[in-house]
């Protein structure tokens, strides 16, 4: 654990990517294979199977620290991380040890095979021989969510530096549903396992939000536009079998049985990138109808009928068994259309239309019609662009519609956690209904650190009542709330629910009486819901 802990500290103590990459590359060049494999797994979102619950961890930690459980529970949201909270409250260790990362992970795995009542002693023994940083990391192995400032991209780059392999090729090898239990460092990184390659998706190419005027992108003839659908990104693989991957690299084949039929329509050796949307036969249905499909691991017949999905495909990554990501978009698009045009209209895959346009002016006008098309805006893709891995600037842009906005009054505030501990960052907003303020949304983001500090000082001085961690404040400040969508929701007092609400601006110029009303919100619901 000492070597892994030193790696963590080196990464954690720097805000510079080059320093982090170098530390990781050194680790990959020197650590034992088993530790390397686990490090790759942890930094790509995989974690050991949980053998104790976080509830048990909390109880045991409070007991060892000699504090009541409620005090640990109150401290946790302020620290923002359970593993860290526990590491901070435990008394100093009485022993030391020099076991490897893999040793501790194997210890955790072994807990599955011993009686539940014996697991506590093992965890306590571990705590008592680890230093504070090691303890934090050990707890992290149990609680999961290894977000410590190392992106998968950074980890892949470091691995490329350490092994001398091509970064894009490595990124592809690391895709899929492997775990350290199903593979070894040698077969994952050094050899290429053909069985694993069968279901392995390509890394998704992600677009940046367009900030500049589109005119700066150059000639319209160099660009292709597409509707930006409001579904979930998916990669459909047709090889010996079919596989469907989400952008979060989750295998979601079973949740969307519609795509089994794709094998009847598409040849083996086809990989499509597109948007999974619910489909009414001619157009996508609202995102809210897709939500139950995303969460259900098995789909009841009724739901399948009410909310059928299709893939609106916009890219072809593998054609006739060949990886064609390096071909220009224009060629990939032509191949995609040839492949899909021949398909029957009830097939679960359709080509998302490519929009050609002769002037940016015309495209701007078209973009304004996005909501009628059930789209969030447009995508702009350079016709000459290869299909890259990850979020890269230059060739692909999302050009979303301006968000909907409403001016609302802040009525409750709560402290943030993690990075934002000791600042008030979580607010509840209300609109007027006559003389009454009706809460309708929460928002956490959009202000600068300076604004959060300013509002924090104000909240402390203007607290009217406390409900646990929540403070009711004097209704005095108006914020412009931006959001992407609005839906009717009987669960909320206001009768509506917003999609992606955030604070667009602090309207210090606006008196509280001039905030919007519940009627305004319902009018927006009627127009955009």
């Amino acid at each position, binding site marked *: 654990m000492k070597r892994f802990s030193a790696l963590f500290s080196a990464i954690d103590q720097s805000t*510079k990517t080059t320093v982090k990459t170098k530390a990781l590359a050194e680790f990959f060049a020197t650590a034992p294979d088993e530790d390397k494999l686990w490090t790759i797994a942890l930094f790509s979102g995989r974690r050991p199977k949980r053998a104790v619950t976080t509830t048990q961890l909390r109880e045991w930690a409070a007991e060892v620290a000699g504090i009541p459980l409620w005090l640990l529970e109150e401290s946790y949201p302020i620290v923002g991380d359970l593993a860290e909270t526990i590491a*901070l409250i435990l008394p100093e260790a009485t022993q030391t040890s020099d076991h490897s990362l893999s040793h501790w992970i194997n210890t955790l795995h072994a807990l599955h095979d011993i009686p539940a009542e014996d697991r506590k002693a093992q965890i306590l023994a571990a705590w008592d021989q680890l230093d504070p940083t090691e303890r934090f990391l050990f707890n992290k192995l149990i609680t999961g969510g290894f977000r410590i400032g190392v992106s998968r991209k950074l980890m892949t780059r470091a691995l490329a530096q350490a092994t001398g392999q091509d970064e894009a090729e490595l990124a592809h090898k690391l895709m899929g549903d492997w775990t350290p239990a199903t593979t070894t460092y040698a077969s994952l990184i050094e050899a290429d396992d053909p069985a694993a390659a069968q279901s392995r998706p390509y890394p998704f190419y992600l677009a940046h939000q367009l900030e500049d005027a589109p005119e700066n992108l150059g000639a319209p003839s160099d660009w292709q536009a597409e509707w930006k659908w409001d579904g979930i990104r998916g990669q459909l693989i047709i090889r010996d079998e079919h596989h469907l991957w989400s952008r979060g690299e989750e295998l979601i084949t079973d949740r969307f049985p519609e795509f089994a039929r794709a094998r009847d329509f598409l040849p083996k050796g086809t990989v499509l990138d597109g948007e999974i949307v619910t489909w009414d036969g001619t157009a996508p249905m609202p995102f809210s109808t897709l939500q139950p499909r995303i969460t259900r691991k098995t789909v009841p017949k009724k739901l399948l009928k009410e909310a059928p999905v299709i893939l609106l495909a916009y890219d072809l990554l593998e054609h006739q068994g060949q990886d064609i990501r390096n071909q220009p978009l224009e060629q990939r698009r032509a191949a995609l259309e040839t492949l899909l045009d021949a398909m029957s209209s009830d097939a679960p895959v359709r080509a998302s239309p490519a929009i050609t346009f002769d002037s940016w002016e015309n495209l701007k006008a078209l973009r304004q019609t996005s909501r009628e098309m059930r789209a969030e805006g447009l995508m702009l893709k350079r016709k000459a662009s290869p299909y890259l891995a990850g979020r890269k600037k230059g060739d692909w842009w999302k050009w979303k519609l301006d968000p909907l906005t409403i001016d609302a009054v802040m009525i409750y505030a709560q402290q943030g956690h993690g990075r934002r501990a000791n600042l008030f960052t979580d607010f509840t907003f209300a609109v007027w209904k006559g003389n009454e303020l009706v809460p309708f949304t929460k928002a956490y983001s959009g202000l600068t650190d300076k604004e959060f500090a300013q509002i924090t000082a104000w909240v402390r001085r203007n607290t009217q009542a406390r409900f646990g961690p929540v403070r009711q404040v004097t209704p005095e400040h108006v914020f412009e709330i931006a959001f992407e969508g609005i839906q009717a929701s009987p669960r909320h007092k206001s009768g509506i629910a917003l999609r992606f609400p955030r604070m667009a601006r602090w309207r210090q110029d606006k008196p509280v009486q001039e905030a919007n009303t519940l009627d305004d919100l319902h009018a927006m619901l009627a127009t955009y819901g």
Partner: protein
Amino acid sequence: MRAPVLTFTDHGIYCPAGDFYIDPWRPVSRALITHGHSDHARPGMGSYLATDAALPIIRHRLGEITAEGIPYGETRRIGGASVSFHPAGHIPGSAQIRVEVAGEVWVASGDYKVLPDGLSEAFEPVPCHSFITESTFGLPVFRWPDQTEVAREMTAWWAANAAAGLTTFLGAYSLGKAQRLLRMLEPIGPILTHGAVEASNAVLRAQGYDLLETLPVTPDLDVKAHPGALVLAPPSALGSQWARRFGKGSTGFASGWMRLRGVRRRRSVDRGFVVSDHADWDDLHQAIKATGAENIYVTHGYTDIFTRHLIDQGYNAQVVPTQFGETEEEPA
């Protein structure tokens, strides 16, 4: 029933028997001041009373004021109250204020730190019936590491930066924390100071506090003539135009908040050093116990949680409604 010795008003802590306020946040005629930080010593009071050791800084910060100094431990009669000032260990000159009326004793702690820092007058427990305590770090996750070890790490970081040709930027509150760091660090290279830090240094040195040699950063200072320097500045100056002239560097911040990874990441500093001018969880409890007080009033920080825990421990504890704002530099 008799009026309480101290009450909590919209102007601050008030003593009816002596007709004075402690650390008031709005103008009043007579103010007793625990220490010189700007959220405790505010402008606009008719008269000020503070320890002899705290007064030079208060005068320096507030300009022309009517003020009087008092030695630690000396009792003074104000109206029907007897008051005395006792070391709080927070920063040089800081005091807890003891107020006695007809045999009943209250102590307002101001901010305090039990751990000796080699600079501030060492904290002294003052027996009382009612104790007004701060709780800036009143959570069990705040426990301060061994300060000798922290000092060693800080100096080692500086040395490593110097060896790599980097400037070392150390952020700290300009009154108290900065001077304490000037006792903790080993002088392995030149120490350059921001004007705000140096102003406090000058006042404290004139009082006889012994600090490491420093070089004030002035517009005509030749930065290149001081390779391997450590730049000591308030956090707000780091990452600003002011800091750019020193070229590439590594940034650290010394504060109790650095105990939390999340806060350190929010500040985007490379290194966080857990050095606080406040009592940690264990020391808050120890200090409260040492007063022998039954009634505990809690202000500043995690007041709700800390108060609930004190009640669990059998104290008669309550939260003081406070209007104390955050100071601009988050001094903890």
